C-alpha cells in the first residue's frame, strides 16, 4: 500500500482507465516518486467508479500533480485532481452515481430497460442482494420525491444540450416517449445527451453529459459536448460550477423513492423524477458510441439483477418518465417531468406486484412471529410499514394490491387488539424501539440522520426564509413561506423519513427472511445426511473433537467476521448512498 502521507484524488476518469495509465500520466509530468494508486470501485461488480487515490512521495510532487495533471488527457478525459478531503470524495462519489452506465453497446433500439437503473444503477452499485425489491421501474419514476435530479435528465437523451450535438434532439420528442426511441440516437455520443449514462451506468451514452443538463444553462462543458469519445466520463460537474450538483444522472433512482435525502447531491432543484429514465432512453440508441460504457446490470439495487441483455428485450420500456428528452435543460425540466405520468409497462407492473406480495407475506410472517412472542410494538410497526409501502407503490390501485393491503390491515387489527388486551405497551412508531434488532450500521445511520434532520428542521424554523430554501432538500418548489408551507415541509420530511425507514426495513426483512429460510434449509437437508455418515465413523473422535472445537470456534469467529465484513461491505456500499460523507 502506498504511503498515506502525500495523497490526492484523481477523478473524472473513464472506467477503463487503468492503474498503469495513471502511473504513466503522473510519471510523464516528471514526478519520480509515484508510489501507488488505488481505485474506488463498485463493490457489487468491481467496476471502477472513475476516480482513484494516488500516493506520492513528497509535497513537491503533489503540487506538480495538482497543477499539471489536469492538462493531460487520459482516454480522452481530463482528470480532476483534488486533495483528499471528504468533500471531494463525496463529489466524486456523486458523479460516479450519476454516471450512467451505458448499456452494453446497444445496438438495439433503445429499449433500454427499464427504467431504471438496471444496470448501472448508478450509485455505486449497491448491488444489494437481488431481493431488493425489484421493481425497477419504480425507481425511475419514483413517485414524487426523488428530487434529486432535477432537471437533469431532462435532456437525457439527447442532445439537449447546447445545440444538441446530436442533432436529433428531440425537441419534438414527447417527453417520455416510450422508449426513448428517437432521442436516443443522439446520445450515442454521449455527449450530451445527458442522460445517457445517467446514473451510473446505464446508458451508453453520454458520457459526457450528464452533468450538464443539470443546470439550466449549465455549461455544457467539459467534455465538450461533442461526443467526446470517452463517454463515460460524465465529468463531474465539479468542473465548472462547484456548487452545481453533480450530474445527477438518473440517479440511482433506485434509490429510493423517497428521494434520498442523504445523498450528497447538491441542491437539486426540482425533484427529478424520472431522472432515471434517462437512462433508458439514452441507452438504446447508442449503438453509436463505441465504447458504450456498459451497463452494470446488477447495479441497480432495486431492480433485480437481470441485466438487460444487450439490446434484446428491453425489459420494459420504460416510458421515459421523466426524461424529457429534448429540450435542453435550460427550461426547467422538472416541471415537465412532473407532468408526465408514466404508464406502467406490464413487466414492471408484475415486478412491483410481486414485490408487494413478498413484502406483504414476509411482513405478516414476521409480525405474527413477533406477536406470538409478545412483541406487539414491532409487529405492528412491521405491518404498518408494509401497508404504507404497498400503498405507495405504483400499482397500489390494483385489486390485488388492495387485497394485500386489507389482509395486512386485518392482521394489524388483530394484533392491536391483542396488545391492548395484554399490556399497555407503548405503540410508538419510532423505529428506535426496535432498533436493536435491526442491523447495527443501518440503525446508526438512521438515527444520526434523523437527528440531523430534526436539528435542521429546528434551525429552519428560526432562520431566514432564504436559508430555508437552501436547506430544503425535498421537492417543494413553491416560494411560499407561509406557516402552512412549514407544515407541508414537515410532512414531506416525515414522509421521506418514513420512506427511508420503510426501505431499510424492507431490506432488512428480505434479508432476514431469506437468511432464516436458508438456515433452516441448510440445517435440515444439507448437513444431516452427510453428518450422519461422518459421525458414524468417528464416535471415538468425539473426545478429540471437543478439544478441537475450541480452535474451531476461533476460526469460526474469523470466518464469520469475514463473512460479516463481506455482507456488511455489500450493505455499506448500498447504504453508502444514504450516508452523508
Amino acid at each position, binding site marked *: *500500500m502506498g504511503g498515506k502521507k502525500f495523497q490526492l484524488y484523481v477523478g473524472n476518469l473513464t*472506467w*477503463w*482507465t*487503468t*492503474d*498503469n495509465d495513471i502511473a504513466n500520466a503522473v510519471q510523464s509530468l516528471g514526478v519520480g516518486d509515484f508510489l501507488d494508486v*488505488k*481505485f474506488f*470501485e463498485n*463493490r457489487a*461488480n*468491481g*467496476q*471502477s467508479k472513475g476516480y482513484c487515490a494516488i500516493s506520492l512521495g513528497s509535497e513537491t510532487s503533489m503540487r506538480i500533480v495538482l497543477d499539471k495533471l489536469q492538462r493531460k488527457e487520459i482516454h480522452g478525459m481530463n482528470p480532476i485532481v483534488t486533495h483528499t478531503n471528504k468533500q471531494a470524495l463525496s463529489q466524486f462519489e456523486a458523479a460516479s452515481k450519476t454516471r450512467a452506465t451505458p448499456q452494453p453497446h446497444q445496438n438495439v433500439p433503445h429499449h433500454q430497460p427499464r427504467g431504471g437503473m438496471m444496470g448501472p444503477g448508478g450509485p455505486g452499485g449497491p448491488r444489494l*442482494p*437481488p431481493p431488493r425489491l425489484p421493481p425497477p421501474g419504480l425507481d425511475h419514476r419514483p413517485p414524487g420525491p426523488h428530487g434529486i435530479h432535477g432537471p437533469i435528465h431532462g435532456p437525457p437523451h439527447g442532445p439537449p444540450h447546447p445545440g444538441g450535438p446530436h442533432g436529433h434532439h428531440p425537441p419534438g420528442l414527447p417527453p417520455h416517449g416510450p422508449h426513448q426511441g428517437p432521442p436516443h440516437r443522439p446520445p450515442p455520443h454521449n455527449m450530451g445527451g445527458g442522460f445517457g449514462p445517467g446514473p451510473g451506468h446505464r446508458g451508453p451514452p453520454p458520457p459526457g453529459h450528464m452533468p450538464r443538463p443539470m443546470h439550466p444553462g449549465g455549461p455544457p462543458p467539459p467534455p465538450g459536448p461533442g461526443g467526446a469519445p470517452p463517454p463515460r466520463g460524465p465529468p463531474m460537474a465539479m468542473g465548472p460550477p462547484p456548487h452545481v450538483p453533480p450530474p445527477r444522472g438518473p440517479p440511482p433512482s433506485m434509490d429510493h423513492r423517497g428521494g434520498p435525502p442523504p445523498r450528497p447531491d447538491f441542491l437539486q432543484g426540482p425533484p427529478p423524477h424520472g431522472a432515471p429514465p434517462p437512462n433508458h432512453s439514452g441507452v438504446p440508441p447508442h449503438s453509436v458510441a463505441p465504447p458504450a460504457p456498459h451497463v452494470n446490470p446488477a447495479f441497480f439495487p432495486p431492480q433485480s439483477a437481470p441485466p438487460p441483455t444487450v439490446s434484446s428485450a428491453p425489459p420494459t420500456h420504460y416510458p421515459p418518465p421523466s426524461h424529457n428528452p429534448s429540450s435542453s435543460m435550460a427550461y426547467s425540466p422538472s416541471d415537465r417531468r412532473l407532468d408526465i405520468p408514466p404508464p406502467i409497462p406490464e413487466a414492471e407492473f408484475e415486478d412491483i406486484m410481486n414485490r408487494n406480495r413478498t413484502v406483504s407475506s414476509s411482513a405478516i410472517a414476521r409480525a405474527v412471529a413477533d406477536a406470538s412472542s409478545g412483541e406487539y410494538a414491532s409487529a405492528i410497526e412491521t405491518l404498518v410499514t408494509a401497508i404504507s409501502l404497498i400503498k405507495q407503490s405504483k400499482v397500489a390501485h390494483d385489486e390485488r394490491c388492495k387485497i394485500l393491503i386489507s389482509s395486512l390491515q386485518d392482521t394489524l387489527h388483530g394484533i392491536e387488539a391483542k396488545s391492548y388486551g395484554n399490556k399497555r405497551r407503548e405503540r410508538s412508531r419510532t423505529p428506535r424501539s426496535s432498533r436493536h434488532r435491526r442491523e447495527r450500521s443501518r440503525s446508526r445511520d438512521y438515527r444520526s440522520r434523523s437527528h440531523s434532520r430534526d436539528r435542521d428542521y429546528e434551525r429552519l424554523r428560526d432562520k431566514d426564509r432564504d436559508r430555508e430554501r437552501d436547506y430544503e432538500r425535498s421537492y417543494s418548489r413553491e416560494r411560499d413561506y407561509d406557516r402552512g408551507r412549514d407544515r407541508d415541509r414537515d410532512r414531506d420530511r416525515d414522509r421521506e423519513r418514513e420512506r427511508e425507514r420503510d426501505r431499510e426495513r424492507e431490506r432488512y426483512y428480505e*434479508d432476514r427472511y*431469506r*437468511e432464516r429460510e*436458508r438456515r433452516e*434449509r*441448510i440445517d435440515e*437437508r*444439507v*448437513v444431516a*445426511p*452427510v*453428518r450422519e*455418515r*461422518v459421525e458414524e*465413523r*468417528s464416535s471415538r*473422535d468425539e473426545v*478429540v*473433537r471437543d478439544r*478441537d472445537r475450541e*480452535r*474451531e*470456534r*476461533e*476460526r*469460526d*469467529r*474469523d*470466518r*464469520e*467476521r*469475514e*463473512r460479516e*465484513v*463481506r*455482507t456488511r*461491505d455489500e450493505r455499506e456500499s448500498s447504504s453508502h448512498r444514504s450516508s452523508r460523507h
Partner: protein
Amino acid sequence: MASQKRSGTTGWPKDQNSYEPTYNGNTNMTLHRTISLYPLTNYTFGTKEPLFEKDPSVPARFQRMRDEFDKIGMRRSVEAVLLVHEHGLPHVLLLQLGTTFFKLPGGELKAGEDEVKGLKRLLTETLGRQDGVKQEWIIEDIIGNWWRPNFEPPQYPYIPSHITKPKEHKKLFLVQLGEKALFAVPKNYKLVAAPLFELYDNSQGYGPIISSLPQALCRFNFTYM
C-alpha cells in the same frame, strides 16, 4: 437429422452423435459434456487429523497475500467441484468450517506448479484417504475463473478494466468421481453435500463463487447412475 432416437423419459434424443454434423467428423467434446454422477451413498467418509488454514485471521490472510505478491506475483488458487447426486439432483461437496463458512476443496499452488498436478496434490492433502490405497483424481474440465482485483475480499469472474494486476486468480475444476470412493475429512471440517437449489441465488449464504455453481454447471449433461 433423420435418425433420432427418442429416449423414453425426455424429449431429447438419446443418440447425441447425430448432432455433430458440422465438425468435420471430429467429435467436439465440449458440445456434449457428459458427466456421470453417483449417489452420495456410494461414498464413505472417514476422518483424519485437522488441517488448519495457513492464516489464523482475515487480516493475516491479506498480509500474507501482500507479502507473497511482492515475491512471486499473483496468487494462483485452484478449487475442485466434486459432484454426487441424490434424488436426481447434483450435489456439490463442500467443506464447512464452523457453522457459516463453506469452501470448496483446493488451495494455493506453489510457485511454478502445474495446475492439474497441484490440484491433485491439494485434493489428496484435504480429502485423500490415509490407508495407503492409491487414490486417483480425474480432473475433468475447467468451469470457472475468478479474479481478485485488490487485497480485499471481493472476487469477480472477470478482470475489471481498470485492473492490470489482479492479486489472485482462482480456477475452478470439475472433478469426476469414481463409482465408489473413500474420503478422509479433517476433523476441523465437516463435509456437506449441498444440492444445487440450495446454492442457487444464495450468495448471501455462500458467496458469489459457490452460489453461482449451478449456472456454471448447467451446461453439462449429467447422467445419474
